[in-house]
């Protein structure tokens, strides 16, 4: 049986893992390579590595850090941040990334998704979507959550699926860093809207939040950062608890 995935996310700025609340107020959370190895050993199903300053500062992701992590770990590995072109994706895959997450560049140029899916296969194209409700409607944001767009979350999700996205990484900006649970209603609606896997992100605070995101939010995977970085939740214990609640996980 296909299992639900637990995915620690390493937000990287200036070579360090950082974590903020609602996308701002960043705190240092350690060396990304040390954390990546630790998470792989504890049973993480996948890692996501986001160079969160890349789009804003207009520079490419640190290929060297990607390479160092890829050498060390034996679980799949998604890289995002500032990915804009076929050449960017090619370089990341050549540096050992298994999948690439694209956010702003896909909004600015949706055709990029089909181009990448055709060249590299849809399975390695993860479309990251940052959204929050504005007047009750979930609106997509770009450039690390700093700019609102007119795009509706569900319309955009359907569009990226049709263009060839292999997976959606949905971050609720309203929940991110709050530790009050995931955006389960929006997640469940998203799962009804598209037929590709959904990674839930934003709001993990307790083991119960993970149980709910799989049961009510219908997520295929759950991503979190600070609860793992600051040892609030241990991945191996979390997966044991999920197993006890009859959620299929790799133990």
């Amino acid at each position, binding site marked *: 049986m296909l299992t639900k995935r637990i995915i620690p996310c390493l937000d990287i700025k200036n070579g360090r893992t950082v974590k903020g609340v609602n996308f701002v107020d960043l705190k240092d959370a350690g060396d990304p390579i040390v954390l990546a190895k630790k998470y792989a050993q504890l049973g993480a199903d996948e890692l996501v590595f986001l160079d969160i300053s890349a789009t804003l500062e207009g520079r490419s992701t640190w290929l060297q850090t990607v390479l160092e992590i890829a050498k060390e770990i034996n679980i799949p590995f998604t890289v995002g941040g500032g990915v804009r072109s076929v050449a960017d994706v090619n370089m990341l895959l*050549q540096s050992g990334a298994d999948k690439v997450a694209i956010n702003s560049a896909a909004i600015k140029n949706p055709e990029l998704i089909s181009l990448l899916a055709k060249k590299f296969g849809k399975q390695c194209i993860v479309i990251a979507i940052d959204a929050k409700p504005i007047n009750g409607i979930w609106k997509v944001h770009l450039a690390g959550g700093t700019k609102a767009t007119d795009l509706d979350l569900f319309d955009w999700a359907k569009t990226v699926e049709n263009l060839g996205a292999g997976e959606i990484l949905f971050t609720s900006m309203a929940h991110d860093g709050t530790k009050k649970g995931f955006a389960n209603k929006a997640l469940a609606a998203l799962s009804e809207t598209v037929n590709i896997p959904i990674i839930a992100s934003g709001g993990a605070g307790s083991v119960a939040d993970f149980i709910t995101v799989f049961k009510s939010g219908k997520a295929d995977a759950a991503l979190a950062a600070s609860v793992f970085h600051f040892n609030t939740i241990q991945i191996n214990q979390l997966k044991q608890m999920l197993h006890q609640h009859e959620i299929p996980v790799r133990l």
Partner: protein
Amino acid sequence: MDVVIIDYGVGNVKSIEFALNRLGVQALLTQDADTIKAAKRVILPGVGEASSAMKNLETCELHRVIPNLKQPVLGICLGMQLMCNYTDEGQTKGLKLFNTDVKQFPNSLKVPQMGWNTINNLKTNLFKGIKPNEYMYLVHSYYAPICSETIAQTTYGFPYASALQKNNFYGVQFHPERSGHAGEQILKNFLELPEANCKP
């Protein structure tokens, strides 16, 4: 060079190279036919789209080289699918090493299948020391149906072939290079396959 990874411009060849390094093995990335023919072990990787990947193999003339190899050959993911007769993806003719046609998962399932699933009904020394229902990492939209050459099965909606073998040719749908210690064991087993299993 003992181990070569065929470099034909697709996907994450580096992660296979790094997994072999972790086993203490240096592999060479190459598309040179003579180097490939002379290697003790050959890996055909692949993450990408079937028709363009097959075109790349043809451009390097490797579609003629690979079927004549006598040493153990391991196709991974798309590499395995290209070793079959045909794949629905891009209506692509394959290398015809495995006698089966690759099909698309139905829309009643989430496609692609992405994540960790179990392998069972394990056959051959490729799976030596691997316990039944071990988890492997899979990410794919197309699958090989169960056939006589099936050496491992996985269930996603229904059972399908997650590994195939004929003579010296092996193919795995999952990514051993990204499937933890068990995946590394499978790569190690491939490197240690006895010569008796390798004769065509």
